[in-house]
């Protein structure tokens, strides 16, 4: 394989896998014919056109599904991210929860996420509902201040079960790293908060790593907007579930404040942005 060919193959990875399977060899043939002899890289304009073409093909693939399906897939991903964020962090908030029960709940939350991508739908729904019941039982140990937060914990697996029950399309495997990254960052936060006895140095490393993962996740999701708005909507759902009940509960109990209102508005604005992009794509995809 020549240099140009292996590099051109690398550039073709911008295209979605299904598209590549069908067209990669053909496009590669054309690209090699268009590349002058003795070059090590495909011409710059060809490389750039493959990047743009790949993004177009990806965004066309993402708008193939109806808007309702895309909304439910975003909901499923958002709930999975929310569930992944919490098995570790909850323990730092509520260290007085019964330990074994807590760990069982954490494992159930992780099992729900894994099942969503890999198990038959009926199994996923069953695991999600069991998780909701288990979290409900644990909630009896919580004090009143955290009840609003607990409500979203019980709501999340129930909503996930409902979304999976009504949506035969499974979320793409390429999304799985989002809940995985959220889970890893939450474990790091847990380590940083020194529930486990760590040296100050290790704990600060864990904290920085969690921040880097979290910011990387945000950046990736915004870059992703180029071809797909669903991950942003999912993130908004996850953040909304994490933030809004607390804000609403606080507002009810202590009266609303300016900063709280702003915090509560951020997910709303981001959701509107994501929905606008999804709608626009759906319109473009309408049959001519």
């Amino acid at each position, binding site marked *: 394989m020549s240099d140009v060919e292996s590099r051109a193959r690398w550039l073709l990875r911008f295209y979605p896998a299904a598209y590549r399977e069908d067209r990669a060899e*053909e496009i590669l*043939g054309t690209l090699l014919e268009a590349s002058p002899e003795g070059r090590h890289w495909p011409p710059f304009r*060809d490389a750039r056109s493959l990047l743009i073409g790949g993004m177009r*093909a990806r965004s066309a693939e993402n708008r193939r599904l109806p808007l309702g399906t895309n909304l439910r897939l975003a909901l499923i991903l958002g709930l999975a991210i929310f569930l992944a964020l919490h098995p570790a962090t909850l323990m730092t908030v509520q260290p007085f929860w019964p330990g074994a029960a807590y760990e069982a709940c954490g494992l159930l939350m992780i099992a729900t996420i894994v099942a969503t991508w890999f198990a038959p739908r009926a199994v996923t729904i069953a695991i999600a509902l069991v998780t909701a019941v288990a979290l409900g039982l644990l909630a009896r140990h919580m004090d009143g201040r955290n009840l609003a937060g607990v409500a979203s914990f019980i709501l999340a697996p129930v909503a996930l079960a409902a979304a999976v029950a009504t949506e035969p399309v499974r979320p793409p495997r390429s999304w799985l790293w989002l809940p995985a990254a959220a889970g890893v960052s939450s474990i790091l936060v847990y380590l940083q908060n020194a529930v486990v006895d760590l040296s100050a140095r290790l704990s600060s490393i864990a904290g920085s790593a969690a921040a880097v993962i979290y910011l990387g996740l945000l950046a990736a999701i915004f870059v992703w907007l180029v071809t797909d708005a669903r991950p942003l909507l999912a993130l908004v759902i996850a953040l909304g579930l994490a933030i809004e009940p607390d804000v609403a509960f606080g507002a009810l109990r202590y009266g609303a404040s300016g900063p709280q209102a702003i915090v509560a508005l951020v997910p709303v604005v981001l959701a509107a942005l994501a929905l606008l992009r999804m709608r626009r794509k759906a319109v473009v995809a309408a049959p001519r």
Partner: protein
Amino acid sequence: MREPTYYILASLLDGPLHGYALIKRSEDLSGGRVRLATGTLYTALDRLAAEGYVRLVSEEIVNGRVRRSYGLTDPGAAALRAEAVRMAEAARIVSDGTAARSSRRARPERGSGQVTGSGTARSGRKARTA
């Protein structure tokens, strides 16, 4: 219709072509102006195929790789012709001096009546023959 699209369709007037041949032919037909990059070509072909203007005609294996040839469909040929007519009409405004004449008429006379007159005569003759 954008210029690259126009030249892709025009390249297929004489029969089906494969990817690289399409790039070369568009470049030749446009006098070197339209140089399609590989990704651009395939994005355009996907779109034109979805619109029904272009279709896959044949597949062969060259150097162990599939090479596909694309041909113009009837709706594609019709769209190309309609675009050509539109551009010819747009060009006539300038080349026949229709626009120039009306803009000159709007301006006050400056003793260039002879030029205006000849322009009118020429466009009048063309209009009759068309």
